[in-house]
């Protein structure tokens, strides 16, 4: 195991859960009054993002292009609400900018673009993230950089053939500085995931990845999986995360599983109250 780039030996799980709650608060505030959005996916990813940005990743918000930074690629650009929340929490964005999310003329549109500090790629055209992560991983290896690459992509995105081209490439080029974070939330644009995707973990294992499957809303499990993914044994790492859309807000968790959730303007205050009650 490399000695480079190690996060603290003893993660502060309580503090990380606090960060996840803060991200969820930010997301609800950003979505409030918009009537629509990818709030459910964002809430589902909050724990993963908290574990990454406040434990695992090495970065400097004052120097977003630091060459030896760890890269986080959000392939599902429509999860931008979660990305902006964590970028604000981490200090890349000013929190006062968050309410402009999704508004005309905003720097924080409904999908992520790489002109935003801390955003590495243009996300949203699904199937674009993993291959670029492989390329970054290869380039960093050529340079002997200690930096690592973390790429989020989703179960729906596994239907894109380019994802599997990239999965083969990652194993071929021994991208053990690459961690794939596969958000399996069970939904896609038309509703529940329609194509037979499972067994996801077995597929990645068969493609030559070191794979583990966890509850993506369990902070201890996420931190443990990320720690195991540090091993530099020639294999890319896959963490298959089973997440619950809307996690932390029971009404949204119970709502019909939809890609683009509709929320009446009158509902937001009660949703925020639910989040506080759940974490009370």
């Amino acid at each position, binding site marked *: 195991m490399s000695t480079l780039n190690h996060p603290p030996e003893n993660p502060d799980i309580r503090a990380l859960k606090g960060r996840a709650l803060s991200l969820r608060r930010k997301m609800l505030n950003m979505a409030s009054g918009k009537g629509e959005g990818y709030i459910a996916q964002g809430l589902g990813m909050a724990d993963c993002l908290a574990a990454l940005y406040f434990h695992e990743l090495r970065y400097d918000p004052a120097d977003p292009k630091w*060459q030896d930074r760890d*890269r986080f690629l959000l392939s599902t650009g429509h999860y931008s609400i979660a990305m902006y929340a964590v970028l604000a929490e981490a200090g890349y964005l000013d929190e006062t900018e968050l309410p402009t999310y999704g508004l005309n003329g905003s720097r924080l549109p409904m999908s992520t*673009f*790489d002109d935003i500090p801390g955003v*590495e*790629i*243009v996300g949203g*055209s699904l*199937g*674009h993230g*993993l*291959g*670029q*992560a*492989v*390329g*970054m*991983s*290869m*380039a*960093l290896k*050529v*340079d002997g950089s200690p930096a690592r690459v973390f790429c989020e992509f989703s179960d729906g995105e596994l239907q894109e*053939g*380019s994802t599997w*081209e*990239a999965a*083969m*490439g990652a194993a*071929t*080029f021994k991208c053990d500085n690459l961690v794939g974070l596969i958000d399996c939330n069970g939904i896609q644009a038309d509703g529940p995931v329609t194509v037979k995707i499972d067994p996801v973990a077995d597929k990645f294992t068969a493609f030559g990845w070191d794979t583990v499957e966890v509850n993506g809303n369990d902070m201890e499990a996420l931190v443990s999986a990320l720690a195991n993914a540090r091993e530099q044994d020639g294999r890319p790492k896959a963490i298959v995360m089973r997440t619950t859309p809307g996690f932390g807000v029971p009404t949204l968790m119970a709502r019909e599983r939809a890609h683009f959730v509709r929320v009446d303007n009158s509902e937001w205050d009660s949703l925020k109250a639910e989040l506080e009650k759940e974490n009370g």
Partner: protein
Amino acid sequence: MAEALHAVGRTRGMGELIDVEGKVTEIAPFGRTLAELAHERPEIVGLTADMGRYSDILPFRDAHPNRFFNVGMAEQDLIMIAAGMSKAGKIAYCTTYSVFITRRAYDFVSIACAHSMANVKIFAGMPGLVNGYGATHQATEDINMMRGIADLTIIDPCDATELKQVVRAVADIPGTVYVRSLRGKVPVELGSDYKFEVGKAKIIREGRDVGVISTGYMSARARDAADAAAGQGLDAAVLHVSTIKPFDKETVLSFAQRFDRLIVAENHKTTGGLATLVIEALYEAGIMKPLIKIGLADSFFECGSQEYLEAKYQVDLPRFVRAIVEGR
């Protein structure tokens, strides 16, 4: 350049140009120049999608094995990996056939590369009828497709002299570049004084009677046809538009204004390529002149040798001479 790099003759390999008889050629100018340049530029990496041999990138592989990557038959992955490497500080030169870059990996060139101004330099092999494997392998609409991508630079070099300059120049052109590459024994057509400049069309033959506007290796053919037509009393000038995008409208218009009739020639369909660009520019400027388009119809094309295909689809030397001399 060492003597061994040059050859005179007609024996051709896969995807080599036919215009070699009696001409000096250079072997693999793309890959050899890239290998040289990479000694000066350590940030250069080279990639292919199982088309190393047929894109001429192997001299780079041999000189810089640790910076060469064959991603297999996976063109989407080729472009994604190139984009990712560029975003980690590399200049990524990548190669495969034009058809697979354009038709298969379009979204990735557009969004993963061009939208991010990624330093990806695509050397797309065997454009147009250079490939004899039929419609599956003939990129006859690639200019049309690629010119639709914002912030993408598109270059169609004429010969070995220009291609070598392009290999070096693109390293310093910001963002993503699509080059219609030439492989194998590539003819040396342009003089040693020729200077490629991105975005600049160049007159490669002066003349008084007819103005030929052309791109790619068709510019050399236009010049050869003009030389042949001179014996029949017609003096044609040739404007070589090697950069398709950004399009040098200013030079094209000033050139077109000098002549009573025009010819536009390209190794591409006459829809959506150079002819369309020229006609758009002329119309907007209020210039209406007789104009002959030499290029391919809006069709799929059959398999065959380049000689056979070019004669059948009327882009060969006699077609050029007829257009210049007879105006039809």
